[in-house]
């Protein structure tokens, strides 16, 4: 599960087509040769990508951001050929072989939905962690602290609304749900009950009617949250 590329690449139209066929099991992975100019073109200006056994999506995003250098992943959000190439280059991290098979699952985990598709764009296992790390760094740690192969419930919920992509909201949700000692999401934060990320999304929408949520400090956001969030706030103050 390691390797390196001298720079990043994009799939050609032919490469992208073959990538789709590989990921849907129509042809063998070996058919897609990542060193063939027929299938890939170099992304000029990027630097070496070192692929290792990334323990977290954050580590993977760091490696990609380092390789992108001054290129903004945000500006490249719609670059399907780039994200698809990265997906295939990282296939062992994202879709490890278990009992002889890769579990590919849902389409938009590996094929990037249009960036403005509010329901599916956040599901891509490479693009979303990279965008989060690039925009928010450690403030997004609670969303990218898991394995690269997992699209966690907390990430799905806390990236579902456009307005969640502000630094103060990221900081507030990190305070609520990230266990600093364990470097992992707090126990119970992946469920669906009171005070969970799913509820935070709903409450955020309600507060947004009265407050300019982009203007409030993380602490002020936490103050405004109803009692149901106390169990996560309390954990924070006890730790």
């Amino acid at each position, binding site marked *: 599960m390691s390797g390196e590329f001298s720079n990043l690449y994009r799939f050609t139209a032919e490469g992208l087509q073959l990538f789709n066929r590989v990921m849907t099991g129509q042809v063998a992975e070996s058919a897609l040769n990542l060193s063939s100019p027929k299938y890939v073109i170099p992304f000029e200006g990027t630097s070496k990508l070192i692929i290792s056994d990334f323990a977290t999506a954050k580590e993977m995003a760091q490696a990609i951001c380092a390789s992108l250098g001054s290129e903004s992943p945000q500006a490249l959000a719609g670059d399907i050929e780039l994200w698809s190439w990265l997906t295939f280059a990282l296939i062992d991290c994202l879709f490890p072989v278990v009992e002889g098979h890769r579990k590919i699952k849902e389409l938009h985990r590996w094929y990037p939905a249009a960036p403005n598709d509010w329901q599916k764009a956040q599901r891509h296992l490479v693009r979303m962690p990279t*965008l989060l790390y690039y925009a928010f760094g450690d403030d997004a740690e609670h969303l990218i602290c898991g394995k690269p192969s997992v699209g966690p419930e907390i990430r799905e919920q806390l990236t579902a609304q456009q307005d969640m992509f502000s630094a103060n909201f990221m900081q507030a949700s990190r305070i609520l749900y990230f266990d600093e000692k364990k470097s992992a999401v707090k126990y119970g934060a992946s469920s669906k009950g009171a005070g969970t990320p799913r509820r935070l999304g709903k409450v955020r929408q309600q507060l947004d009617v*009265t*407050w300019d949520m982009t203007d409030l400090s993380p602490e002020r956001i936490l103050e405004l949250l109803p009692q149901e969030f106390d169990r996560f706030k309390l954990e924070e103050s006890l730790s």
Partner: protein
Amino acid sequence: MRRNIRLTGRKQLAKSAFGLSLSENDGKLVGLFSIIVPNELDGFPSESEIRVKLVENKLVEVLRFGTVASPISSAEIKEKSFRAPSCEVRLVCRDGAASGKLLGSTNAWTLRNGGDSDGILLFQPSNTAPRLWKLDIPDSGDVQPILYVDERIPDAALWAKSDPLFAACVLPHVVGEIMRKVLSLPGSPEDGWEFDWITWAYTLMPGKKPPFGGLDEEKVRWIDDLISSFANRHNLADRVLATMGGVR
């Protein structure tokens, strides 16, 4: 006149009362703001802050344009990748414990800065019968090409954008027609709708230069490649096959 009633005390501001545009200045992206109808701000505390929220593709940035008493006309935008952000003017309280409360806001609207796949082709219901659709390509200028769709179809514009069969059969032809017109120019356009379309083509085929002034065969090949990339990007054939029950 249609009015929105809000129960939070937040006032509905008219979009038409404000001017907003994006501009590049010394390599910096700048938001330019103006108050076209000053009366719109009557009654708000003078220290209330004027903010504009830009949102696009998982990206939020807030621009600050001073206060009601002392508005300012420009603010730098840090993120340069905004192309067609949704924007909203907001008046925010700056008074003690209520600081941060929304006092007024406009509805959101889309600010165009260059082309994107939705904005470079306008879909418009029209009396096209007996034809299902008709394409209008302007000679030049800022008015985008328009794809007229038979108005007898309910929500014709939305249908044309979302129906897989229509997209697969019609849009590649539309792209080809429009690009033939663009490539008939002597050189790469610097503005107008043709510039937006070329910018869009670059996003589909990065690094593949359009053959302005080239041989006809080169142009045909380039357009053909563009249509393949477009079809690939949007899974045109697969989406149609999916509606038919998938690939056999």
